[in-house]
């Protein structure tokens, strides 16, 4: 039953987590023009920050979520100021930026692994399961779906209605003209890192709560996140939103099909790879990207 209500629920939850990661990746790509591999570790960092609040300090996971958003956003800003800003001022190309992001990512992951070890960990929270259209949905999953949707609308409001959001779009469109219009690009970049990083932190907490915590948490979903960004059309905010849910459904339907065919569901990660390759061959500009953006 590829289209059972359970698959729809699982797909929406998966898509909601991918969308939060992909939006941050897209934001950073749009203004700085490089693929930020460190984004995976921002996801993991957020998940472990919430672990400190929730398990080590014994507080509610909601507080962990808020702290994870703030601290991951701040980590994004710190890495920009310490590394990427310096590279920008030296006129480094996007390849140098990308390699630097891989390096910082490795550093963050190793610090997390040294601090908490490689073993699996879980948050401590009460969850309730509800029947929903013949399937089941947990309280956590409802929370993930609602809060992701709210965040998408908030971001839409930010980009379309606020001067900060419009300035982000302006910088990604034409940074020199933006400066000539009086926009302080470095100040706007701080917001991009804070919001993009913060969303990755939230995604990390959601993923950790929905599955488990492990130092490779972010790395495991970096590939699907990149697949979402490419499928949506590199740099397209709305394309990434659609693509996140498309990939969420593809993965979950794919897993159901694999089960029906008695093939191991361990091939699940391959679905993102297959979609990535197909998109690159058939429509490299993605769902909403233009040729100019690819």
């Amino acid at each position: 039953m590829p289209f059972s209500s359970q698959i729809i629920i699982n797909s929406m939850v998966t898509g909601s987590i991918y969308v939060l990661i992909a939006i941050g990746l897209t934001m950073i790509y749009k203004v700085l023009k490089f693929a930020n591999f460190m984004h995976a570790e921002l996801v993991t960092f957020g998940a472990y920050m919430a672990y400190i609040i929730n398990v080590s300090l014994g507080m509610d996971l909601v507080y962990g979520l808020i702290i994870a958003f703030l601290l991951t956003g701040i980590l994004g800003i710190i890495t920009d100021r310490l590394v990427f800003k310096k590279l920008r001022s030296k006129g480094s190309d996007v390849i140098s930026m990308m390699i630097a992001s891989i390096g910082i990512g490795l550093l963050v992951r190793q610090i997390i692994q040294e601090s908490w070890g490689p073993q699996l960990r879980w948050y401590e929270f009460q969850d309730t399961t509800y029947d929903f259209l013949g399937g089941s949905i947990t309280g956590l999953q409802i929370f993930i779906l609602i809060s992701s949707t709210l965040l998408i609308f908030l971001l839409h409001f930010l980009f379309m209605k606020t001067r900060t959001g419009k300035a982000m779009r302006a910088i990604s469109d034409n940074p020199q003209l933006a400066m000539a219009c009086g926009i302080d690009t470095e100040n706007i970049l701080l917001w991009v890192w804070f919001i993009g990083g913060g969303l990755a932190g939230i995604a990390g907490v959601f993923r950790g709560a929905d599955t488990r915590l492990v130092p490779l948490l972010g790395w495991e979903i970096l590939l699907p996140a990149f697949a979402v960004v490419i499928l949506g059309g590199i740099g397209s905010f709305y394309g990434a939103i659609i693509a996140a849910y498309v990939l969420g459904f593809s993965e979950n339907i794919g897993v159901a099909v694999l089960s029906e065919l008695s093939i191991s569901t361990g091939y699940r990660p391959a679905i993102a790879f297959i979609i990535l390759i197909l998109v690159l061959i058939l429509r490299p500009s993605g769902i909403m990207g233009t040729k100019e953006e690819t």
Partner: protein
Amino acid sequence: MILRVKDIKKSFGGLIALDGVSLDIKKNTIVGLIGPNGSGKTTLINVISGFIQPESGSIEFKGMDISSMKPHQIARLGICRTFQLTRVFRHMTVLECMLLASKTHDTGILKLFLNPGEVSKKQNADIERARNILEALDIGHLGNEYASSLSGGQQKLLSFGMVQMTQPGFVLFDEPVAGINPTLANKIFEKIELEKKSTTFLVIEHNIDILMNFCDEIYVMNKGKITAFGTPQEIQCNKSVIDVYLGG
């Protein structure tokens, strides 16, 4: 003087782009800047607008030293610039481009929540001003179109509209009518002349007829230096200028 440029030097590797350039520009005038390709005109505009830092020399705007300021800081002082190749925000609508250029269009996140009434009032006033400017430029009907869908000439007009929207005290125009038909070019300069009451213009332009008709003074550059200065009539009679630029 509204703008004083003193002894600016700038080189790129072994190439000397600006070799001790000095300008004095009076308020509410249109000043032309001419010279052969590669003479340093665009570099000078880049230096004045903060996009390139000079190696030595100073730039004073209304008596304030701006030579080490960043582009956005200079823009906020009221110095607006355009680019040789027309630049607009291609993924924004024409109206959005205009609003972003407005200094009064402050829809900060906090203000939106704390004082939505004031923000909405200002925004409506800005939208009306933007529409009036677009109407005057004959592109009023394109307000909701994406800037990328406009023709080259329409993008030039939008770029000019964005300049007007900033209500600048000083405008640096880098070939504002290059590639535009003569009728439209004259129309743009007629508008620039009207704006002269409140704004000062430094204009790089290769169209000599337009410069002679609309400029109050002209500077001539060659090989990174100012080689002549005067009224259009004086420049037209200057033998060295004729040799270097006007081609006899």
